[in-house]
Protein backbone atom coordinates (compact mmCIF):
# COMPACT_ATOMS: atom_id res chain seq x y z
CA UNK A 1 0.00 0.00 0.00
CA UNK A 2 3.04 2.25 -0.22
CA UNK A 3 3.47 3.63 -3.72
CA UNK A 4 1.42 6.66 -4.59
CA UNK A 5 -0.75 6.39 -7.68
CA UNK A 6 0.77 8.12 -10.67
CA UNK A 7 -0.80 11.35 -11.75
CA UNK A 8 -3.69 11.02 -14.16
CA UNK A 9 -5.41 13.24 -16.66
CA UNK A 10 -9.09 13.23 -15.89
CA UNK A 11 -11.65 13.10 -18.67
CA UNK A 12 -14.52 15.44 -17.96
CA UNK A 13 -18.02 15.88 -19.38
CA UNK A 14 -20.02 18.96 -18.47
CA UNK A 15 -23.55 19.85 -19.49
CA UNK A 16 -24.15 23.58 -19.15
CA UNK A 17 -26.12 25.67 -21.64
CA UNK A 18 -24.15 28.49 -23.28
CA UNK A 19 -26.87 31.03 -22.71
CA UNK A 20 -29.90 31.25 -20.46
CA UNK A 21 -32.54 33.83 -19.57
CA UNK A 22 -31.88 35.90 -16.44
CA UNK A 23 -32.91 34.25 -13.18
CA UNK A 24 -33.49 30.93 -14.87
CA UNK A 25 -32.59 27.87 -12.87
CA UNK A 26 -30.52 25.45 -14.94
CA UNK A 27 -29.46 21.92 -14.13
CA UNK A 28 -25.73 21.48 -14.44
CA UNK A 29 -24.50 17.92 -14.97
CA UNK A 30 -20.92 16.72 -14.66
CA UNK A 31 -19.23 13.39 -15.19
CA UNK A 32 -15.56 12.71 -14.55
CA UNK A 33 -13.43 9.67 -15.24
CA UNK A 34 -11.80 8.44 -12.07
CA UNK A 35 -11.28 4.92 -10.68
CA UNK A 36 -12.20 5.99 -7.10
CA UNK A 37 -10.16 3.12 -5.73
CA UNK A 38 -11.27 2.78 -2.12
CA UNK A 39 -8.04 1.39 -0.71
CA UNK A 40 -9.90 -1.50 0.86
CA UNK A 41 -9.64 -3.92 -2.05
CA UNK A 42 -7.01 -6.57 -2.71
CA UNK A 43 -5.50 -7.42 -6.08
CA UNK A 44 -5.18 -10.92 -7.49
CA UNK A 45 -2.01 -11.49 -5.48
CA UNK A 46 -3.72 -10.61 -2.21
CA UNK A 47 -1.93 -7.27 -1.88
CA UNK A 48 -3.80 -4.12 -1.03
CA UNK A 49 -4.60 -1.77 -3.90
CA UNK A 50 -3.58 1.74 -2.79
CA UNK A 51 -6.33 4.22 -2.24
CA UNK A 52 -6.78 6.61 -5.14
CA UNK A 53 -9.78 8.89 -4.90
CA UNK A 54 -10.97 12.36 -5.69
CA UNK A 55 -11.14 14.31 -2.48
CA UNK A 56 -13.23 17.29 -3.52
CA UNK A 57 -15.30 18.79 -6.30
CA UNK A 58 -16.35 22.41 -6.28
CA UNK A 59 -17.79 24.99 -8.61
CA UNK A 60 -17.45 28.75 -8.66
CA UNK A 61 -19.71 31.13 -10.54
CA UNK A 62 -18.38 34.66 -11.06
CA UNK A 63 -15.73 33.95 -8.44
CA UNK A 64 -18.16 32.77 -5.80
CA UNK A 65 -18.34 29.18 -4.58
CA UNK A 66 -21.78 27.83 -5.45
CA UNK A 67 -21.35 24.09 -5.02
CA UNK A 68 -18.95 21.88 -3.12
CA UNK A 69 -18.79 18.21 -2.32
CA UNK A 70 -16.27 16.16 -0.35
CA UNK A 71 -15.72 12.62 -1.60
CA UNK A 72 -14.99 9.61 0.56
CA UNK A 73 -13.74 6.16 -0.40
CA UNK A 74 -17.32 4.86 -0.69
CA UNK A 75 -18.10 6.84 -3.84
CA UNK A 76 -18.36 4.77 -7.04
CA UNK A 77 -15.98 5.17 -9.97
CA UNK A 78 -16.55 7.96 -12.50
CA UNK A 79 -18.61 10.21 -10.20
CA UNK A 80 -21.65 11.87 -11.74
CA UNK A 81 -22.65 15.09 -10.00
CA UNK A 82 -25.63 17.24 -10.90
CA UNK A 83 -26.80 20.44 -9.24
CA UNK A 84 -28.89 23.52 -9.95
CA UNK A 85 -27.65 26.99 -10.66
CA UNK A 86 -29.59 30.24 -10.75
CA UNK A 87 -28.27 32.34 -13.63
CA UNK A 88 -28.01 35.92 -12.42
CA UNK A 89 -25.37 37.57 -14.60
CA UNK A 90 -23.06 36.50 -17.42
CA UNK A 91 -19.79 35.15 -16.22
CA UNK A 92 -17.36 32.33 -15.78
CA UNK A 93 -18.28 28.99 -14.27
CA UNK A 94 -15.25 27.08 -13.02
CA UNK A 95 -15.39 23.38 -12.29
CA UNK A 96 -12.60 21.99 -10.13
CA UNK A 97 -11.88 18.38 -9.23
CA UNK A 98 -9.23 17.88 -6.57
CA UNK A 99 -7.48 14.53 -6.22
CA UNK A 100 -6.19 13.09 -2.98
CA UNK A 101 -2.64 14.17 -3.87
CA UNK A 102 -3.79 17.76 -4.27
CA UNK A 103 -3.71 17.79 -8.06
CA UNK A 104 -6.53 19.90 -9.46
CA UNK A 105 -8.28 19.54 -12.81
CA UNK A 106 -10.01 22.73 -13.82
CA UNK A 107 -12.49 23.37 -16.59
CA UNK A 108 -13.83 26.86 -17.31
CA UNK A 109 -17.11 27.52 -19.11
CA UNK A 110 -18.73 30.82 -20.02
CA UNK A 111 -22.37 31.31 -19.20
CA UNK A 112 -24.16 34.11 -21.05
CA UNK A 113 -27.25 35.49 -19.32
CA UNK A 114 -29.62 37.17 -21.75
Amino acid sequence: MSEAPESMTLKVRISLPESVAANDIVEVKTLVSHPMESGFRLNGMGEGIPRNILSRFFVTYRGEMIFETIFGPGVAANPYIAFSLRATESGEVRFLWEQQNGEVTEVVRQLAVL
Partner: protein
Amino acid sequence: MTSRRLSLMLLFALVHIMSPAVAELNYEPSAELSSEPGPEPSPESRSTAQTKAQTKAKQGYDYQSSDVQSLQDDEFSNPGMLWVDEGRELFAQPAGADGQACLDCHQQPAGMAAYYPRINPRLNKLVGLTGQVQICRETHQNATPIAYESRTALALTAYLAFLSRGEPFQPVAESLQADLGQGRDYYYQRKGQLNLSCAECHEQNAGQYLRGDLVSQGQSTGYPIYRLEWQTLGSLHRRFRSCDIGVRAEPYGLGSDAYTRLELYLRSRSQPLPISAPAVRK
Protein backbone atom coordinates in the same frame (compact mmCIF):
# COMPACT_ATOMS: atom_id res chain seq x y z
CA MET B 1 -65.11 -42.49 -19.12
CA THR B 2 -64.21 -41.52 -22.64
CA SER B 3 -66.27 -38.37 -22.37
CA ARG B 4 -64.42 -37.47 -19.15
CA ARG B 5 -61.08 -37.90 -20.82
CA LEU B 6 -62.27 -35.95 -23.78
CA SER B 7 -63.29 -33.04 -21.60
CA LEU B 8 -59.94 -33.21 -19.78
CA MET B 9 -58.12 -33.10 -23.08
CA LEU B 10 -60.24 -30.21 -24.14
CA LEU B 11 -59.46 -28.37 -20.93
CA PHE B 12 -55.73 -28.83 -21.37
CA ALA B 13 -55.90 -27.92 -25.01
CA LEU B 14 -57.60 -24.71 -23.95
CA VAL B 15 -54.91 -23.97 -21.39
CA HIS B 16 -52.27 -24.67 -24.01
CA ILE B 17 -53.80 -22.17 -26.34
CA MET B 18 -54.20 -19.52 -23.68
CA SER B 19 -50.68 -19.59 -22.28
CA PRO B 20 -47.73 -21.71 -23.38
CA ALA B 21 -45.97 -21.07 -20.04
CA VAL B 22 -48.90 -22.42 -18.02
CA ALA B 23 -49.15 -25.30 -20.46
CA GLU B 24 -45.63 -26.40 -19.60
CA LEU B 25 -46.30 -26.27 -15.90
CA ASN B 26 -49.45 -28.30 -16.35
CA TYR B 27 -47.98 -30.89 -18.60
CA GLU B 28 -46.82 -33.27 -15.86
CA PRO B 29 -50.09 -33.45 -13.88
CA SER B 30 -51.94 -34.14 -17.11
CA ALA B 31 -49.68 -37.13 -17.75
CA GLU B 32 -50.35 -38.37 -14.22
CA LEU B 33 -54.09 -38.02 -14.60
CA SER B 34 -54.30 -40.36 -17.55
CA SER B 35 -52.98 -43.58 -16.09
CA GLU B 36 -53.55 -45.59 -19.23
CA PRO B 37 -51.46 -44.84 -22.31
CA GLY B 38 -53.04 -41.45 -22.58
CA PRO B 39 -53.13 -38.78 -25.20
CA GLU B 40 -49.88 -37.88 -26.93
CA PRO B 41 -48.31 -34.63 -25.73
CA SER B 42 -50.33 -32.07 -27.59
CA PRO B 43 -48.72 -30.52 -30.66
CA GLU B 44 -48.82 -27.13 -28.96
CA SER B 45 -46.51 -28.14 -26.14
CA ARG B 46 -44.07 -29.75 -28.53
CA SER B 47 -43.94 -26.68 -30.73
CA THR B 48 -43.15 -24.39 -27.77
CA ALA B 49 -40.09 -26.51 -27.05
CA GLN B 50 -39.00 -26.25 -30.65
CA THR B 51 -39.50 -22.52 -31.02
CA LYS B 52 -37.58 -21.75 -27.83
CA ALA B 53 -34.35 -21.76 -29.82
CA GLN B 54 -35.80 -19.39 -32.40
CA THR B 55 -37.26 -16.81 -30.01
CA LYS B 56 -37.03 -13.20 -31.06
CA ALA B 57 -33.63 -11.59 -30.52
CA LYS B 58 -33.66 -9.21 -27.57
CA GLN B 59 -31.03 -6.77 -26.40
CA GLY B 60 -29.44 -7.16 -22.99
CA TYR B 61 -30.95 -3.71 -22.44
CA ASP B 62 -34.43 -5.24 -22.24
CA TYR B 63 -33.42 -7.33 -19.23
CA GLN B 64 -32.13 -4.36 -17.22
CA SER B 65 -34.02 -2.38 -14.63
CA SER B 66 -35.39 1.00 -15.69
CA ASP B 67 -32.73 2.98 -13.80
CA VAL B 68 -29.93 1.19 -15.64
CA GLN B 69 -31.80 1.63 -18.93
CA SER B 70 -32.16 5.36 -18.39
CA LEU B 71 -28.46 5.61 -17.57
CA GLN B 72 -27.70 4.06 -20.95
CA ASP B 73 -30.25 6.19 -22.80
CA ASP B 74 -28.96 9.48 -21.47
CA GLU B 75 -26.09 10.22 -23.79
CA PHE B 76 -24.64 12.69 -21.33
CA SER B 77 -24.57 10.64 -18.17
CA ASN B 78 -23.86 7.26 -19.77
CA PRO B 79 -20.42 6.64 -18.24
CA GLY B 80 -19.33 4.73 -21.36
CA MET B 81 -19.34 8.05 -23.19
CA LEU B 82 -16.17 9.01 -21.29
CA TRP B 83 -14.41 6.29 -23.29
CA VAL B 84 -16.10 7.36 -26.52
CA ASP B 85 -14.83 10.92 -26.00
CA GLU B 86 -11.35 9.63 -25.32
CA GLY B 87 -11.51 7.32 -28.32
CA ARG B 88 -12.50 10.19 -30.59
CA GLU B 89 -9.39 12.09 -29.48
CA LEU B 90 -7.10 9.07 -29.74
CA PHE B 91 -8.40 8.26 -33.20
CA ALA B 92 -7.23 11.61 -34.54
CA GLN B 93 -4.03 11.74 -32.54
CA PRO B 94 -0.76 10.63 -34.20
CA ALA B 95 0.95 7.77 -32.41
CA GLY B 96 4.18 5.85 -32.86
CA ALA B 97 7.37 6.38 -34.81
CA ASP B 98 5.64 7.15 -38.10
CA GLY B 99 3.48 9.87 -36.58
CA GLN B 100 0.33 8.40 -38.07
CA ALA B 101 -3.14 8.66 -36.63
CA CYS B 102 -5.89 6.11 -37.18
CA LEU B 103 -7.76 8.84 -39.04
CA ASP B 104 -5.00 9.13 -41.66
CA CYS B 105 -5.99 5.76 -43.10
CA HIS B 106 -9.57 5.40 -41.88
CA GLN B 107 -11.35 8.56 -42.94
CA GLN B 108 -14.78 6.96 -42.80
CA PRO B 109 -14.73 4.93 -39.60
CA ALA B 110 -18.53 4.89 -39.22
CA GLY B 111 -19.99 1.43 -39.62
CA MET B 112 -16.63 -0.34 -39.36
CA ALA B 113 -17.48 -2.16 -36.15
CA ALA B 114 -20.35 -4.03 -37.83
CA TYR B 115 -17.87 -6.05 -39.93
CA TYR B 116 -15.87 -7.57 -37.07
CA PRO B 117 -14.70 -10.23 -36.32
CA ARG B 118 -13.32 -10.72 -39.81
CA ILE B 119 -10.29 -12.27 -41.49
CA ASN B 120 -7.16 -10.16 -41.35
CA PRO B 121 -5.76 -10.78 -44.86
CA ARG B 122 -2.11 -10.34 -43.85
CA LEU B 123 -2.22 -12.78 -40.94
CA ASN B 124 -4.93 -14.88 -42.60
CA LYS B 125 -6.57 -15.14 -39.21
CA LEU B 126 -9.88 -14.21 -37.63
CA VAL B 127 -9.58 -11.02 -35.57
CA GLY B 128 -12.08 -9.00 -33.61
CA LEU B 129 -12.24 -5.21 -33.61
CA THR B 130 -9.92 -4.98 -30.62
CA GLY B 131 -7.50 -7.38 -32.27
CA GLN B 132 -7.46 -5.25 -35.40
CA VAL B 133 -6.83 -2.10 -33.34
CA GLN B 134 -3.89 -3.87 -31.73
CA ILE B 135 -2.53 -4.96 -35.12
CA CYS B 136 -2.90 -1.44 -36.61
CA ARG B 137 -1.17 0.00 -33.59
CA GLU B 138 1.82 -2.26 -33.93
CA THR B 139 2.26 -2.71 -37.67
CA HIS B 140 0.80 0.38 -39.33
CA GLN B 141 1.51 2.99 -36.70
CA ASN B 142 4.70 1.44 -35.41
CA ALA B 143 3.60 2.36 -31.89
CA THR B 144 4.04 0.53 -28.62
CA PRO B 145 1.64 -2.42 -28.48
CA ILE B 146 -1.48 -1.96 -26.42
CA ALA B 147 -3.02 -4.60 -24.19
CA TYR B 148 -6.43 -6.04 -25.06
CA GLU B 149 -8.20 -4.60 -22.03
CA SER B 150 -6.16 -1.38 -21.85
CA ARG B 151 -7.84 1.98 -21.58
CA THR B 152 -6.60 2.93 -25.05
CA ALA B 153 -8.00 -0.21 -26.68
CA LEU B 154 -11.32 0.17 -24.89
CA ALA B 155 -11.57 3.84 -25.79
CA LEU B 156 -10.88 3.21 -29.49
CA THR B 157 -13.26 0.26 -29.75
CA ALA B 158 -15.96 2.11 -27.80
CA TYR B 159 -15.65 5.04 -30.19
CA LEU B 160 -15.81 2.80 -33.28
CA ALA B 161 -18.74 0.81 -31.94
CA PHE B 162 -20.48 4.07 -31.03
CA LEU B 163 -20.10 5.25 -34.63
CA SER B 164 -21.87 2.07 -35.78
CA ARG B 165 -24.77 2.61 -33.40
CA GLY B 166 -28.16 1.83 -34.83
CA GLU B 167 -27.10 -0.53 -37.59
CA PRO B 168 -27.07 -4.30 -37.20
CA PHE B 169 -23.97 -6.46 -37.51
CA GLN B 170 -23.18 -7.55 -41.05
CA PRO B 171 -24.26 -11.10 -41.90
CA VAL B 172 -21.40 -13.57 -41.55
CA ALA B 173 -19.68 -14.21 -44.88
CA GLU B 174 -19.60 -17.64 -46.51
CA SER B 175 -15.82 -17.79 -46.14
CA LEU B 176 -16.11 -17.64 -42.36
CA GLN B 177 -18.28 -20.72 -41.99
CA ALA B 178 -15.50 -22.85 -40.50
CA ASP B 179 -14.79 -20.31 -37.75
CA LEU B 180 -18.49 -19.80 -37.24
CA GLY B 181 -18.97 -23.54 -36.77
CA GLN B 182 -16.25 -23.64 -34.12
CA GLY B 183 -17.86 -20.68 -32.38
CA ARG B 184 -21.19 -22.48 -32.41
CA ASP B 185 -19.56 -25.60 -30.97
CA TYR B 186 -18.13 -23.52 -28.15
CA TYR B 187 -21.57 -22.06 -27.47
CA TYR B 188 -23.16 -25.47 -27.08
CA GLN B 189 -20.23 -27.16 -25.32
CA ARG B 190 -20.92 -27.94 -21.67
CA LYS B 191 -17.98 -26.97 -19.49
CA GLY B 192 -16.72 -26.30 -16.00
CA GLN B 193 -17.61 -27.86 -12.68
CA LEU B 194 -21.19 -26.69 -13.13
CA ASN B 195 -21.24 -28.44 -16.52
CA LEU B 196 -23.11 -25.66 -18.28
CA SER B 197 -22.87 -24.41 -21.83
CA CYS B 198 -23.67 -20.86 -22.94
CA ALA B 199 -26.94 -22.20 -24.34
CA GLU B 200 -28.10 -23.61 -21.01
CA CYS B 201 -28.48 -20.11 -19.61
CA HIS B 202 -28.74 -17.73 -22.54
CA GLU B 203 -30.86 -19.81 -24.89
CA GLN B 204 -32.94 -22.11 -22.70
CA ASN B 205 -33.36 -19.82 -19.71
CA ALA B 206 -33.20 -16.28 -21.04
CA GLY B 207 -35.74 -14.17 -19.21
CA GLN B 208 -35.62 -16.34 -16.06
CA TYR B 209 -34.17 -15.20 -12.79
CA LEU B 210 -30.70 -16.26 -11.73
CA ARG B 211 -30.76 -15.14 -8.10
CA GLY B 212 -31.65 -11.46 -8.33
CA ASP B 213 -30.89 -10.94 -12.01
CA LEU B 214 -32.65 -11.73 -15.23
CA VAL B 215 -30.67 -13.96 -17.55
CA SER B 216 -30.30 -12.24 -20.91
CA GLN B 217 -29.93 -13.78 -24.34
CA GLY B 218 -26.24 -12.95 -24.18
CA GLN B 219 -26.36 -10.64 -27.17
CA SER B 220 -23.12 -8.87 -28.05
CA THR B 221 -24.50 -5.71 -29.67
CA GLY B 222 -23.88 -3.43 -26.68
CA TYR B 223 -20.16 -4.10 -26.28
CA PRO B 224 -17.93 -2.68 -25.00
CA ILE B 225 -20.23 -2.14 -22.01
CA TYR B 226 -20.01 -0.06 -18.90
CA ARG B 227 -20.78 -2.55 -16.19
CA LEU B 228 -21.70 -1.10 -12.81
CA GLU B 229 -20.22 -4.12 -11.06
CA TRP B 230 -16.89 -3.63 -12.84
CA GLN B 231 -16.99 0.13 -12.26
CA THR B 232 -15.45 0.51 -15.68
CA LEU B 233 -15.88 -0.19 -19.36
CA GLY B 234 -15.15 -3.78 -20.35
CA SER B 235 -14.83 -5.84 -23.50
CA LEU B 236 -16.93 -8.77 -24.66
CA HIS B 237 -14.02 -11.10 -23.99
CA ARG B 238 -13.85 -9.93 -20.40
CA ARG B 239 -17.54 -10.86 -20.17
CA PHE B 240 -16.76 -14.29 -21.67
CA ARG B 241 -14.09 -14.81 -19.03
CA SER B 242 -16.54 -13.85 -16.29
CA CYS B 243 -19.06 -16.36 -17.62
CA ASP B 244 -16.46 -19.13 -17.88
CA ILE B 245 -15.26 -18.41 -14.36
CA GLY B 246 -18.91 -18.35 -13.27
CA VAL B 247 -19.46 -21.94 -14.42
CA ARG B 248 -16.04 -22.80 -12.93
CA ALA B 249 -14.37 -23.54 -16.23
CA GLU B 250 -10.83 -22.54 -17.15
CA PRO B 251 -11.25 -19.25 -19.03
CA TYR B 252 -9.46 -18.51 -22.28
CA GLY B 253 -7.30 -15.43 -22.75
CA LEU B 254 -8.56 -12.04 -23.85
CA GLY B 255 -8.39 -11.96 -27.63
CA SER B 256 -7.91 -15.73 -27.85
CA ASP B 257 -9.04 -17.58 -30.99
CA ALA B 258 -11.74 -19.46 -29.07
CA TYR B 259 -13.33 -16.24 -27.83
CA THR B 260 -13.00 -14.49 -31.19
CA ARG B 261 -14.88 -17.37 -32.85
CA LEU B 262 -17.52 -17.23 -30.15
CA GLU B 263 -17.79 -13.50 -30.79
CA LEU B 264 -18.37 -14.29 -34.46
CA TYR B 265 -21.08 -16.79 -33.59
CA LEU B 266 -22.83 -14.29 -31.29
CA ARG B 267 -22.72 -11.79 -34.13
CA SER B 268 -24.58 -14.29 -36.32
CA ARG B 269 -27.21 -14.71 -33.58
CA SER B 270 -27.79 -10.99 -33.13
CA GLN B 271 -29.81 -10.27 -36.29
CA PRO B 272 -31.63 -7.90 -36.59
CA LEU B 273 -30.61 -6.11 -33.38
CA PRO B 274 -28.83 -2.78 -33.82
CA ILE B 275 -25.43 -2.05 -32.30
CA SER B 276 -26.03 -0.04 -29.12
CA ALA B 277 -22.57 0.52 -27.67
CA PRO B 278 -21.58 1.69 -25.16
CA ALA B 279 -24.33 -0.09 -23.25
CA VAL B 280 -24.75 0.03 -19.48
CA ARG B 281 -25.30 -3.15 -17.51
CA LYS B 282 -25.66 -4.00 -13.88
